[in-house]
């Protein structure tokens, strides 16, 4: 039993890292619908190296390319930025000028911020 790292189960979770996700699964992980996820991918593929594989030679998002669980934190970061700036086009402009803001992220802090923002959004919705 590896107590230092939270047990064998945790170790296995780290190792079985790359899991292919369908668009629906990925959208559920971020808490948005598939159309919104598509729009995130649409801007991410143009400016972020991680998502360049979604670039199709005929334009648009490459449909056959799969998302993995490793992409989720980066998409969550985009979601957070959209919430902050209120518009996906503004985020696209920001992404073009500062791609490192989206590319090199601290996954732990992004997850925390994401959870917090999701909770706040739900509370706001309930209040209204």
């Amino acid at each position, binding site marked *: *039993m*590896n107590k230092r*790292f939270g047990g*064998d189960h945790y*170790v*296995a979770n*780290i*190792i*079985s*890292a*790359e*899991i*292919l996700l369908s668009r629906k699964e990925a959208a559920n992980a971020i808490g948005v619908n598939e159309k919104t996820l598509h729009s995130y991918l649409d*801007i991410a593929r*143009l*400016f972020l190296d991680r998502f360049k*594989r979604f*670039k*199709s*030679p*005929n*334009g*648009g998002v490459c449909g056959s390319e*799969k998302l993995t669980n490793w992409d989720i934190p980066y998409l969550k970061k985009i979601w957070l930025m959209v919430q902050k700036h209120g518009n996906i*086009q503004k985020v*696209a*402009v920001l*992404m*073009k000028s500062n791609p490192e803001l989206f590319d090199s992220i601290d996954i732990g802090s992004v997850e925390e911020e994401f959870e917090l923002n999701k909770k706040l959004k739900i509370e706001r919705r309930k209040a209204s």
Partner: protein
Amino acid sequence: MNIKEFATMANCEVGFIIDELTSFNPAFRWKATSEIPEELKKDLMARVDFYPESESQSSEQQSSTPRPSIKRADPATLQEAIAQRRENSETIKLALLDALNNQHIAYIVELAIKNALNLVDTYDDVQIKVLHQDIAQRNIKIQAQIEALRLENQTQQIARTNESAQLMGKSVVTQSESQKSLQESMDVFNIVMQAIA
């Protein structure tokens, strides 16, 4: 000239032109009927030339004006690269399984990074494209193997726990036996002492 006309002229898809223009200027929402600014036209032409997809569509143009294309590896080299990659991957996988067995997290992470870097550094775009599916399949297999190994690890641990429990039991028995023999010797000693008295 609007995007649609430009796409017809360059023999490529409207979507491709829109993508390129969006990457130049994301603040503007580009449509097929949008006019292409003069200052972007030159950059756009360079991009269209760069992509070999537009070449394949315009075979006539290709024969008349040779265009720069991405260097493609010949099949033999590609096969060799795939074999090499497979070998590397196999070595890394074995090391990864070994590390998993010994539960060295830092080493596991290092190996995973090495694996990713190996892919990025060694091969060009074309090879990566070919290898991508292969790797995805292999990942699934490796995951299954890791899961099997984890289960095996668990059973081994259970076996080890049982073994240690048995050993503990044995030591308890031995202790009670030694106590018993001590008691017997004490009894003999007492009898002897009584006899002396």
